[in-house]
């Protein structure tokens, strides 16, 4: 049987359902007269409800919609119109409107799957672009050097700008030490003083799939400059776990290391001073106890000497142990003996900076002179006074301190019968510490102590307070 032999209704119905896409037809009055099963599924309305009804009665909103305009336009112009639009029931459709009799035939094709695929692809691409842009911005902004490789031998290493700066390479240069021989950078890495072979660097190891976390490496440049880097490298793998390359990040910890070194030096220095001071205290205790018969007197003397040492430290601490004011050293030493009566001491001389060692020695010496004056000399009488005068002299281009301690109005003094810690300190210790001379006279009107010592030049005492240099103890 040929197609021509089919009855027209069976033929139409066969074609209608055989299209396999939603199809309907309207007459000049928009009355629906053909409507297949796919159209029923698409619109969710059975043929029984649609056939014989006007399209606008069924979809009244469409009159004012773009869809309505397209349909009316096609009806007027009597031409085939193709396009894509959102269907009234939701999904994207491609449509074909063609003149059929005095009306229109409409074939729809649901393309929402394609649209969804395109949308998600666009979204994915957009997200990828955003992520890439974010990553680039982060790489540009972070104060960390970052470099990448995409081959297991790390022959080609690309860096961010910070890494290029850190490695002193033009931005965009291959930073690999395992790259083509002729183009290799000239810097080298060291660990514990030993050069690290290029194939053992964190990046090269990570590119082979090995661990490389938090390694401290020293970066050395050809000109001798050095930097300390904290480097971390990780292997980049694809979803299946295959190695794609490696990424490394490095922080310049040079300043931190310098600071830590400086701190260690300061701690050593502090430790040295503490131990040194303890040795001085031990010596004072030893000499005080062995030369004093009376325990109460020994205790008093020891405490006096300890206090003198402590006050000298106070003066030095104020100047960060770099120098001390001679005036302050003297004032601190005599203050326990000056009392409220300021007439007992006549102190005069230009203030000058003395090195720490001089300050300590002078403080201890003045304490001994005061203690002696209170016990045997001018300060043992109500009317006795002490003069402390000094001046700075130039001798053969060198500066000399000339200081005189003069007691007046005290009892007649004679040579002491016993040389104790005090006179030993004044006659042996002080000249040694000052590299000068000390003359102690037990004269009839009172004790006179003349001190002469070369003074270091301004350049030696005036140490830049901002400098990190540690002055000698």
């Amino acid at each position, binding site marked *: 049987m040929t197609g021509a032999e089919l009855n027209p209704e069976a033929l139409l119905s066969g074609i209608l359902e055989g299209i396999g896409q939603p199809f309907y037809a309207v007459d000049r009055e928009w009355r629906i007269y053909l409507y297949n099963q796919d159209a029923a599924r698409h619109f969710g309305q059975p043929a029984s409800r649609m056939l014989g009804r006007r399209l606008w009665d069924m979809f009244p909103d469409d009159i004012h919609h773009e869809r309505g305009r397209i349909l009316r336009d096609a009806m007027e112009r009597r031409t085939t119109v193709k396009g894509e639009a959102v269907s009234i029931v939701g999904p994207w459709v491609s449509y074909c409107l063609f003149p059929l009799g005095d009306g229109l035939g409409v074939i729809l094709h649901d393309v929402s799957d394609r649209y969804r695929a395109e949308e998600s692809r666009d979204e994915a691409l957009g997200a990828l672009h955003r992520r890439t842009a974010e990553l680039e911005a982060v790489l540009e902004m972070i104060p960390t050097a970052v470099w990448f490789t995409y081959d297991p031998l790390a022959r080609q290493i690309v860096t961010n700008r910070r890494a290029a700066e850190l490695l002193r390479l033009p931005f965009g240069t291959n930073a690999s030490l395992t790259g083509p021989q002729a183009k290799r950078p000239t810097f080298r890495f060291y660990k514990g003083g030993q050069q690290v072979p290029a194939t053992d660097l964190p990046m090269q190891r990570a590119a082979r799939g090995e661990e490389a976390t938090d390694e401290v490496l020293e970066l050395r440049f050809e000109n001798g400059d050095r930097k300390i880097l904290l480097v971390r490298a990780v292997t980049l793998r694809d979803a299946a776990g295959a190695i794609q390359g490696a990424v490394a990040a490095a922080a310049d910890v040079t300043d931190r290391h310098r600071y830590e070194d400086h701190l260690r030096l300061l701690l050593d220095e502090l430790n040295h001073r503490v*131990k040194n001071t303890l040795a001085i205290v031990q010596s004072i205790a030893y000499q005080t106890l062995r030369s004093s018969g009376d325990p109460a007197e020994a205790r008093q003397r020891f405490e006096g000497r300890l206090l003198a040492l402590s006050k000298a430290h106070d003066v030095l601490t104020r100047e960060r142990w770099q120098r001390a004011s001679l005036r302050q050293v003297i004032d601190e030493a005599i203050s326990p003996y000056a009392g409220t009566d300021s007439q007992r001491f006549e102190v005069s001389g230009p203030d000058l900076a003395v090195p720490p060692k001089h300050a300590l020695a002078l403080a201890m010496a003045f304490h001994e002179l005061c203690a002696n004056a209170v016990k045997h000399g001018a300060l043992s009488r109500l009317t006795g006074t002490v003069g402390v005068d000094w001046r700075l002299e130039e001798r053969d281009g060198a500066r000399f301190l000339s200081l005189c301690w003069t007691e007046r109005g005290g009892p007649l003094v004679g040579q002491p019968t016993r040389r104790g810690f005090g006179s030993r300190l004044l006659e042996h210790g002080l000249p040694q510490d000052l590299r000068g001379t000390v003359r102690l006279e037990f004269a009839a009107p009172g004790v006179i102590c003349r001190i002469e010592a070369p003074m270091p030049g301004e350049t030696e005492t005036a140490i830049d307070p901002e400098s990190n240099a540690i002055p000698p103890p």
Partner: protein
Amino acid sequence: MSTVTVLRVLLVEDESIVAMMVADLLEELGHVVAGAASTLEDAVVKAASLEFDVALLDLNLNGRQSKPVVAILQRRELPFVFTTGYGSAMTAELAEVPVLRKPFLIGDLQDVLQQAIKKEGR
């Protein structure tokens, strides 16, 4: 026996108050202070010229290392003891030198002197 050995000691110490005590302690132990120095220059001269059996050498003299003195003592093959306030970095070849850490007891002083003498006698 070591207790009867009278040693002539070169005392190099920049802190005068400490030097006074060490001199007293040496006398108390029956030793003799053959010479005392408080500066590197003085120490170099005395280490090279004086007659003594052992040196007590402060590692740090007014902020300067006393290495030049070490060189002279080694050349003269005279034993020595380092005195120091803290464990400063010592070179490997000097790691064997006895060290007296300040402050110290009189017994410690005697022990390190004997140690230095014995090492030399080997």
